[in-house]
């Protein structure tokens, strides 16, 4: 029982990432009808926002400490981050320690801007072109974004540690009555899951309970009629693209402590996220979220020793296998609407 619970928990962090990226992809597809192969790159840019902020906060100036000597007898050089000089050592150290959560504030405007520029500058011109062209041009864009990041940050993964308070593990098992040490779970994964749930909830309530969201939903159902009613639906869809980019970016920001960001992490997640979208049903937001968590948990179950000894390598192919089966038996996905992209 506790083993099953542990596997479900293990699947949650990847599942959250899949769900967030797939949510953004679906949002873009549902509103603009564009297949965005550059969405993984947005996820990656988000993660590198955290890296950038961390680097900025750690910018230091060097002072000579006369009281301490190094082994040659010269005064020791001490690097003090500017932040610590400005806010005092304790507050400064805390700000640096909390750089990843702080990056959320830093990343939101950047991601919205990136999304806005991307939509206005490039994707706008591809609404009327075939899906193959959209795939190709965003694929090219993904390569370009990835190479730019690689140019500035290098090819090696960069550590972005979580705050000290949240970096350990917690014994979840004792809380629900299992033996101690049965379920030990890293805190940051819990944070990530909670964060993902929060974001997903925010997006859904934004769409469900605001006038803006209502108009967007109406536009998803029938773009032309909404336009005829005198509403500038294009502008709203552009904002939705920005929001989708923001969701992917925030997913990336918080994912850094789980897996050090490198320049090709976007591409790695992109393929899987597409599979998730397809399994969930193209254009269905709840479907994307459900399928994201489902596939994450499924992957975690397939990685157990029991599964890998029964069917070797099942952990590597399970997601693709599920996708193939779903696509062939239930073309519109788990929760897809009838007739949407059902070819």
């Amino acid at each position, binding site marked *: 029982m506790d083993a099953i619970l542990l596997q479900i928990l293990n699947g949650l962090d990847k599942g959250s990432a899949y769900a967030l990226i797939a949510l953004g992809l679906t949002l873009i597809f549902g509103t603009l009808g564009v297949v965005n192969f550059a969405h993984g790159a947005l996820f990656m840019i988000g993660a590198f926002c955290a890296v950038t902020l961390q680097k900025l906060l750690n910018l230091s100036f060097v002072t000579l400490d006369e009281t301490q000597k190094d082994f040659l007898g010269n005064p020791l050089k001490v690097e003090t981050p500017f932040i610590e000089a400005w806010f005092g050592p304790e507050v400064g150290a805390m700000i640096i320690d909390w750089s990843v959560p702080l990056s959320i504030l830093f990343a939101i405007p950047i991601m919205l801007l990136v999304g806005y520029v991307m939509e206005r500058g490039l994707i706008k011109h591809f609404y009327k072109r075939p899906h193959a062209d959209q795939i*190709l041009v965003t694929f090219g864009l993904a*390569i370009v974004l990835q190479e730019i990041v690689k140019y500035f940050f290098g090819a090696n993964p960069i550590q972005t540690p979580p705050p000290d308070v949240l970096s350990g593990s917690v014994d979840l098992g004792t809380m629900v009555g299992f033996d101690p040490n049965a379920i030990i779970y890293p805190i940051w994964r819990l944070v990530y899951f909670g964060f993902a749930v929060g974001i997903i909830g925010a997006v859904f309530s934004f769409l469900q309970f605001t006038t803006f969201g209502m108009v967007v939903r109406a536009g998803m159902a029938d773009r032309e009629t909404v336009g005829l009613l005198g509403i500038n639906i294009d502008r709203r869809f552009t904002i939705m693209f920005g929001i989708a980019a923001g969701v992917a970016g925030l997913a990336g920001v918080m994912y850094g402590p789980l897996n050090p960001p490198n320049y090709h992490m976007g591409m790695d997640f992109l393929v899987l996220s597409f599979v998730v979208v397809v399994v969930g049903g193209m254009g269905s937001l709840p479907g994307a979220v459900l399928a994201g968590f489902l596939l994450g948990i499924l992957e975690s179950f397939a990685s157990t020793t029991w599964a890998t000894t029964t069917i070797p390598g099942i952990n590597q192919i399970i997601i693709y296998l599920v996708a193939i089966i779903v696509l062939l038996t239930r073309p519109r996905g788990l929760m897809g609407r009838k007739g949407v992209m059902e070819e």
Partner: protein
Amino acid sequence: MLGLNKKDTSLLIVVALLTLLAPFILNPFPEGSAMAQFNAGYPDLMQRFVIFGIFAIGFNILFGLTGYLSFGHAAFLGVGSYSAVWMFKLLSYNVIPAIALSVVVAGLFSLLIGFISLRRSGIYFSILTLAFAQMSFALAYSVLSNPKFNLTNGETGLQVYADDPQILQGANAPDLPHLFGLPMRATYTMDVGAWSFDFNAGYYLCAIIMMAVFYLSIRIFRSPFGMMLRAVKSNQQRMNYTGLNSKPYTLAAFVISGMYAGLAGGLMAAMDPLAGAERMQWTASGEVVLMTILGGTGTLIGPVLGAGFIKYFENIFSKINDNVLHSWFAFLPDGLEDAVVFVIHPFIGKGWHLTLGILFMLVVIYLPGGLVEGGQRLLKRFKRKKKDTDDAPSGKTEPAE
């Protein structure tokens, strides 16, 4: 000639001349001169030109004619490579059985994947092929290399070892891939003045095969079968309404292009008897998509051009470094020189992929027909300037919808 009309015959002859004379054409700069680094006439690179040319020609038969965008063609290339190396391991280093088997196995594999994937179209087809290719990659990388059943040798890559059976390997046969005793690495170097030209046996084998498959692709393009595939691209629904089942046609195109990819993979293994799983990764599939689009989708010569273009500039751009740039712009004043080099720096050397990505985006946005369309436009503009009076009314007729 050979059942082709005049235009196609001349195209085939041009391609044949270009490939056969490639050692001369690609080595225009004398040995030891400053420009010698832009020579591309060494065997390894020339082999890559034609092998990727074959790969792209095959991909174009599927994507260019039917419009089905496959993101999983590298899987067939990888399967071809693996089967060729297995032939080397089991039979002998002769390349003929190896290439034959790689085509057959890739054909069967693509029949299986195509049969399933082609049940869907559009973006679903792309994602299905992507999923299959990633699955094959994962399988080749880990599962199929377990000690009991080692088919792919995992991360190390499949290669020939001394204790392999090689039952048909003759006593005197060379210990590397050969064609009835002629080693693929055999190179005859001809020195003419300051120039030196390499004639490599492996390259010429690939070149001849490429001409053959290029001829085949022309015939496919011009055949009723090719027309049918084009009809699928322009409007599959209408075709189905006329009571015609388009599935066998698309499946045939898929299998043919899979066999082309397998052939390319087999040749790759024949040039260098090693097969690794990274050949099957989806970025490798992406590369052939780039080649085809860059050259010109749906045109005969486009994919070959695109493959040559990408492989050539990949090679050249990776070689250019800051020192080379400084020597080029030495005529500028010092500050300006540094500024120019600074601006160009991200795009060269390791930044080649950035250049490629930007180039690819520009082509998709402004020149959907690729290099071929670009060339045609230039030609047209050039002609118009010459005539200057050619303002005939547009005789273009719109099809009735």
